[in-house]
């Protein structure tokens, strides 16, 4: 039952906690935000161009691209770019994790392993920090979202796409995108999207689901939300260049037969992606990472450790399992010593019993 505080008679007296959202807003502006975005896909899919278009900066100055003969045996690297950007007083520390070399070699067996290892490492780092004593300045390097670029040249998902997404869907929010969508006519885009959606379901890949909107949201929002869900996977185009069209200067690609505008909703889903990623769901992505993926990792980690302990019967953990740190080292040591003594005595007893038994037999 909702209580209106201090309702005396017909008057409502103002308490003031309605200002809480404002306080949260103020504090968060002061604190600043951080966001880690991972991009994955074969080279030449337009990942760097898209990132530049999304954040309207030039993150990838002076890149050196490998030749094809160098790529025959290439291994996947993980490269982080961190930038601090500010808009209307709100600071964002944006980290882009790039995965050059993915899918480029001739033999791509387990080429996603460096990526899953990286994500696990970040979780482990956060786990240690969280379990430590001094938790003031924990740096959150966990990956909040992974944009996976599907090539538009095929008929749907390829085996390497399926394997990658399956390896990652329980560790990070996977958002599949159809890259370079300017090579597909609207019919072809629709066919490909249906195909990809069907294959995602068939292979049981759990991509990031947009949260259901509350029933008391306004119609427009609900409509947008519905459209967004139906558009998955989003077909995007990126561009590093500005062209002039219809009297305006827009980001786009110039062709002899026309100009593709990146921000034109009828040309591609770039605007939807930007809205989703930055304007409406950025925080939700972070929440899902913290509440679901990280918690799964943590639970798994603790389970593994405790099962190992019951097997060994000795205290031997590489990571401090619970917040038992420095002051309890002494008791740890004592317990260890006592345990060893016990073991020794048990041994002696066994020996004597054995001797008596042998003696009896003689």
């Amino acid at each position: 039952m909702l209580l209106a505080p201090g309702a005396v008679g017909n008057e409502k007296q103002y308490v003031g906690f309605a200002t809480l959202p404002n306080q949260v807003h103020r504090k968060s502006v002061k604190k600043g935000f951080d966001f880690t975005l991972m991009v994955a896909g074969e080279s030449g899919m337009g990942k760097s161009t898209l990132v530049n278009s999304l954040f309207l900066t030039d993150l990838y100055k002076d890149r050196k691209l490998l030749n094809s003969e160098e790529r025959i045996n290439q291994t996947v690297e993980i490269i982080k770019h961190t930038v601090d950007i500010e808009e209307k007083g709100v600071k964002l520390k944006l980290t882009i994790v790039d995965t050059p070399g993915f899918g480029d070699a001739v033999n791509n067996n387990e080429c996603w392993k460096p990526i899953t290892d990286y994500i696990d490492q970040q979780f482990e780092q956060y786990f240690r920090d969280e379990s430590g004593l001094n938790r003031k300045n924990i740096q959150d390097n966990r990956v909040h979202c992974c944009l996976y670029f599907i090539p538009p040249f095929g008929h749907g998902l390829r085996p390497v796409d399926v394997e990658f997404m399956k390896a990652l869907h329980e560790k990070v929010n996977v958002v599949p995108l159809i890259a370079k969508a300017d090579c597909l006519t609207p019919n072809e885009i629709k066919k490909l999207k249906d195909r990809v959606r069907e294959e995602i379901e068939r292979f049981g890949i759990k991509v990031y689901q947009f949260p259901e909107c509350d029933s008391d949201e306004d119609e427009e929002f609900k409509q947008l939300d519905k459209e967004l869900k139906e558009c998955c996977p989003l077909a995007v185009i990126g561009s590093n260049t500005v062209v002039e069209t219809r009297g305006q200067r827009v980001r786009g690609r110039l062709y002899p037969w026309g100009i593709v505008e990146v921000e034109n909703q009828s040309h591609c889903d770039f605007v939807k992606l930007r809205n989703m990623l930055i304007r409406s769901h950025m925080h939700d992505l972070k929440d899902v990472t913290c509440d679901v993926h990280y918690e799964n990792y943590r639970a798994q980690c603790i389970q593994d450790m405790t099962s190992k302990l019951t097997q060994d019967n000795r205290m031997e953990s590489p990571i401090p399992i619970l917040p038992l740190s420095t002051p309890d080292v002494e008791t740890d040591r004592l317990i260890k010593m006592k345990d060893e003594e016990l073991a020794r005595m048990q041994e002696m007893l066994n020996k004597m019993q054995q001797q008596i038994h042998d003696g009896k037999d003689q």
Partner: protein
Amino acid sequence: MAATDVDIFSNEEKRNLSLGGHVGFDSLPDQLVSKSVTQGFCFNILCVGETGIGKSTLMNTLFNTMFENEEASHYQNGVCMRPRTYDLQESNVHLKLTIVDTVGFGDQINKEESYKPIVDYIDTQFENYLQEELKIKRSLFNYHDGRVHICLYFIAPTGHSLKSLDLVTMKKLDSKVNIIPIIAKADTISKSELHKFKIKIMSELVSNGVQIYQFPTDDDAVTEINSSMNAHLPFAVVGSVEEVKVGNKTVRARQYPWGVVQVENESHCDFVKLREMLIRVNMEDLREQTHARHYELYRRCKLEEMGFTDTDPDCQPFSLQETYEAKRKEFMGDLQKKEEQMRQMFVNKVKETEAELKEKERELHNKFEQLKHMHQEEKRKVEEKRWDLEEEMNAFNRRKVAAETLSLVQPLKKDKDKKKVNVWAQAKHGFVFHHHSDINVFFYFLYIPS
């Protein structure tokens, strides 16, 4: 003619004669043409490229027909070749066209073996032709020539460079077939990017020593167009079978929200150039190159492998058949020798193993005897001990009985004989002493089992 006459003729200078009137042998090319037209032509295209890159669509666009094609799936286990033969006719020229598709190319996670089925297919076609050529009764004019005349390699339009798989595959194919690399789905690359992309591809091909097909520039009629086309390689093509109304014409094109890409518009893509070069100008040259260069190379390698050389030390050309027979005899002889050897080895091995087994058996037997002997020894010793022990036990029991009877008798004799008592005391002492030792013995007996 005598052999000497021929020699004289070959040493003479060839003289140019001028004709007095129209003889008519200038119709020779026409005769050749009409013969070949009645015979029909045969052309084989191999399309190599990832699934979904547009190979079938391009073939449909090039030949302006709808070849029946199902969409391939991405989940093939390996690359498989799918040749399809069609009969086309234009004016009165018949073309037997075979299109070979590589299904599943580039889809696997491990693509190290992807090039093998392609190379095997090309070699098989060469091999079949070679076999037909080597036959005693051959019918080459009737033979359906399946040798691949051209390989169209479809490069994905990433805009950066070749993929590693492309490089590896083209290197394996360049000595076996004429390769023309083309950039597929070129409507995703803008003009400036396209220029850089083409340069990068060509430089990568050159630096890795990949020999692609160069349009011939030695024939005056086509030298100009061919050399200009050579500079446009690789061709950036767009394929489409859909028709779109542009202006007041209906053309084959792709309709986008931002414009219409016309397939046959030279400023949109290089499709027209490809069609010119492939079909209208150089088709015959491609067939010739396949036969004269690639097939001859294959044939030479194959025959050298089999051990043929062109001439023997006496400069007499070998007859292929004789050499073949000689080789065959040699081979059979070798085979028999090898068989003998193996049989011999096998027999030896069997003998050895048998000898070893016998040795081992003997050893085991000896050991068994030894152990039995030891066991018997031990048993005897234990028996002896037992016997001793029993003896002692019996002795003790007797003494025990004796002592008991003595103690019973003792109170009756107490008053009567002091001497006897003394003697008895001595005896008692001795008995006691003895008693002690008996007790010791008794305890000793008690102690052993514990």
